[in-house]
């Protein structure tokens, strides 16, 4: 069929069923096979035991940036957890479950009793197959995986490699077992008559899948850090940002980088600022609660003009909130958080590829503009997988800060020299002639404390205006418009992970004939108001979808543009619901029609 591949597979199980692991193998295998992948796992806040795990993977011929609102296939490794998710499978989608559970189940406790009439059941003796193939039932997940691969005739080779890679650190026997389980699943999948209408267009799979990498937002950030030659990282574990540190903990030492787990977020940002001051490419990563703790030190970074990169992955708040749920409610904190006029750069990538690019560029920008840079993502983006091209690498700049300003080291050196663009010559410890004291106190050009009114106003101006050029920084699209060109009925102004859903919704809306477009905004601070305003002026209505209750981005935009926008806030802890968004678009379009009819007539007359 000509139809391009675009399927979403959900694997649902209980912690310990290897749900996430098998989902991981699946998406990596699909990436190897050359499909574009986006995946988002849901796992429980509980450390161990029976929490629900869902691994959702959407594979497509061309990269997409959001999950579908429905799944095409659901695999149940644990019916109790899977049953509530049966409804997310579309009509004529497939549901795969174990037809031979180990122990008797109470009435209604088996998923087969919960399928919707439109679903296609695949009752598979998963456990038995696992035991048959491996002598144990621990490989149920991989049997199921094999079954899917077999059922849809996915390339076995890719899965073999993915499994091998997955278990390469374990004893060889582990991988052998896994492979055996997979093959048995694959066999039964291949021999099962396929009723569902889940279609995969094998012809369109890129044959040279190797150059495509599978990454989470966290992984991409880590990757970007490494590409940027990160030298030091200080972090404190916090969901959902921990993954960044864990990845770097493995990779940085191999490249001579240094990573220290600090005693708290305050220490983490402190050490990062310290390292930045000392000239290292330094970063830390945290989530909302951690960022709140870091606010004060960020103020210091701004005042002392010390480069530092802070990766923030938002989660449900306030307070401890919902550590394993996603939300975009730390925008205010990231942009305004802290005391005083502490303007900093805030980047909010909208997809995994963006995470990597922003992460790498963040170091360059922090260095160039001598200011802390916050890269703001959320749990959804942190944990979701996407395939990322590493082909045609953006060539990220190596560490260097040009000597701007007239005063050169040694010769009447002024660390905070007032220059045209507000950027001052930076020296770091070890450089003779560059000696200075960085301080959180207001200071003169030499860095000497000075609270004289002129000095304060001049320096405040410097600290703010030097960031104007940040909006021109090459290598990142700080804003980008998608969808219909020119005047449109509905425009979506979206940021962060939500942009993916916004784009999806816009595409669906256009299929319904609504003239609409979406603009992604990647730079939150300073806000690139000019392009945003241009976009808004093209729109009858501007919707700002975001995952928070108060509409923080809407407030930011409305505030800076002085233009009303429609808040489409969605604070459930889940990614933006495409249908919800679609409805909002429809309504906006309707409203616009009404207003047109009422207003246009007198205009004509």
């Amino acid at each position, binding site marked *: 069929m000509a139809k391009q591949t675009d399927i979403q597979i959900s694997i649902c199980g209980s912690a310990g069923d290897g749900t996430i692991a098998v989902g991981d193998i699946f998406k990596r295998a699909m990436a190897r096979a050359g499909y574009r992948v986006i995946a988002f796992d849901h796992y429980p806040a509980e450390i161990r035991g029976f929490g629900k795990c869902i691994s959702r993977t959407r594979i497509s011929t061309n990269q997409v940036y959001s999950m579908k609102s429905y799944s095409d296939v659901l695999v149940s490794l644990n019916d109790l957890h899977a049953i509530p998710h049966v409804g997310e499978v579309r009509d004529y989608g497939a549901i795969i479950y174990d037809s031979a559970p180990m122990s008797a189940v109470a009435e209604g406790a088996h998923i087969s009793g919960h399928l919707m009439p439109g679903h296609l059941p695949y009752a598979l003796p998963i456990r038995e197959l696992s035991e048959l193939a491996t002598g144990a039932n621990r490989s149920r997940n991989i049997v199921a995986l094999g079954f899917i691969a077999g059922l849809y005739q996915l390339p076995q080779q890719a899965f073999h490699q993915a499994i*091998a890679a997955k278990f390469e650190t374990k004893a060889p026997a582990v991988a052998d077992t896994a492979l055996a389980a997979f093959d048995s699943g694959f066999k039964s999948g291949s021999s099962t008559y396929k009723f569902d209408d889940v279609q995969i267009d094998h012809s369109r799979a890129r044959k040279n899948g190797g150059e495509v990498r599978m990454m989470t937002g966290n992984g991409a950030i880590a990757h970007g850090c490494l590409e940027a030659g990160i030298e030091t990282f200080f972090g404190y574990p916090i969901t959902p940002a921990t993954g960044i540190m864990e990845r770097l903990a493995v990779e940085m030492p191999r490249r001579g980088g240094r990573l220290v787990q600090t005693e708290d977020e305050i220490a983490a940002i402190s050490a990062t600022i310290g390292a930045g001051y000392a000239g290292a490419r330094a970063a830390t990563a945290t989530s909302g609660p951690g960022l709140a703790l870091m606010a004060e030190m960020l103020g210091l970074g701004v005042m002392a003009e010390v480069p530092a990169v802070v990766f923030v992955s938002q989660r449900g708040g306030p307070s401890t909130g919902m550590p394993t749920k996603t939300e975009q409610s730390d925008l205010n904190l990231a942009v305004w958080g802290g005391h005083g006029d502490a303007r900093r750069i805030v980047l909010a990538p909208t997809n995994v590829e963006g995470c990597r690019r922003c992460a790498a560029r963040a170091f360059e920008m922090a260095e160039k503009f001598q200011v802390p840079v916050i890269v703001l993502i959320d749990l959804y983006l942190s944990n979701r997988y996407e395939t990322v091209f590493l082909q045609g690498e953006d060539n990220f700049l190596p560490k260097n800060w040009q000597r701007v300003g007239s005063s050169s080291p040694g010769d009447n050196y002024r660390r905070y020299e007032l220059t045209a663009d507000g950027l001052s010559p930076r020296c770091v410890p070890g450089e003779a002639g560059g000696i200075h004291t960085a301080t959180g106190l207001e200071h003169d050009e030499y860095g000497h404390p000075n609270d004289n009114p002129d000095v304060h106003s001049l320096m405040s101006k410097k600290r703010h205006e030097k960031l104007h050029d940040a909006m021109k920084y090459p290598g990142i699209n700080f804003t980008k418009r998608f969808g219909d060109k020119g005047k449109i009925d509905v425009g979506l102004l979206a940021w962060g992970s939500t942009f993916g859903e916004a784009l999806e919704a816009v595409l669906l809306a256009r299929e319904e004939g609504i003239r609409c477009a979406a603009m992604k905004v990647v730079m939150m601070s300073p806000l690139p108001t000019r392009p945003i305003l241009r976009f808004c002026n093209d729109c009858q209505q501007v919707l700002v979808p975001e995952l928070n209750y108060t509409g923080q981005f809407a407030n930011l935009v409305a505030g800076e543009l002085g233009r009303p926008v429609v808040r489409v806030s969605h604070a459930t802890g889940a990614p933006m619901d495409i249908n919800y968004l679609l409805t909002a678009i429809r309504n906006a379009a309707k409203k616009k029609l009404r207003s047109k009819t009422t207003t246009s007539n007198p205009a004509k007359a």
Partner: protein
Amino acid sequence: MIPEQPVYLEDKVDEIRQSGRLAYRSTALPTWCPGCGYYSMTEGLVNALTELRIKTEDTVIVSGIGCASRFPFFMDTYGFHTLHGRALPVATGVKVANDKLTVVAVGGDGDGFAIGGGHIPHAARRNVNITYLLFDNGIYGLTKGQVSPTSATGFITPTSPFQNRDAPLNPLLMLLSYGASWVGQAYAGWPHHLTQLIRQALEHPGFSYLHVLSPCVTFDKTDRTYQNLDLAVRELDADHDSSDMAAAMRAAADTSTPMLGLYYAEMRETLGQALDLIAARAAGAQRIKRATTRHRQRKAPA
């Protein structure tokens, strides 16, 4: 005192000029209260750095908030005046970023043990190779004389008008139990002794903690004055074994007559060494891993 050999001030002055000591000073005059022990600490550090021939550009002094916060401004070394209680983590960052630097964190008892108290144990256990000069005057000087974690019980201040009822901390015992690899105590009134201890602290590879007793000449005229400290302090017994933790703790426990000198010192892997080791291990691990991967891929298609 008049030395046996006639010493003329201007000769001394020339000597000082030649010594290069002054190069470590900034141009700005220190703004501490006259008589403040910080001057003693400054000179001690200046002299120690001079003796050790550490280049000014290779020295970084990190301060938090409090009377110590201005410390870097009075030195012509690299300096970082950071936030209340955060000198240690920032210093750690600087050191991790560049091991070649000589990093000195300075702070007061409030900065160190109140708001920053959480950082000390970790700097100590990590054994990050920096020197922490803690200036203990048992009071918040910058905010005009409130009680601090090391204020004596019964101390009366604007925030403890009916006497401070809290028991003071025993910083030396804390640091010893935190596993600081070098713990010493000095007294601002003994500048030569202080200098020597700072020198040792700087030379020690690892986290060196020097507790510097000093009065607050402005806000404490009654309790911890130079007079009282002069009478109270004494040197550690000549036979004190600085490798004997128990002995060090016994000495530290005696708060009535604070003893000055090196309490405890041990050689231990520093954070820098640890990170290098990790890097080496990581490099090794990578090789092993590739091997297994190849092995897998041969097998997989079967």
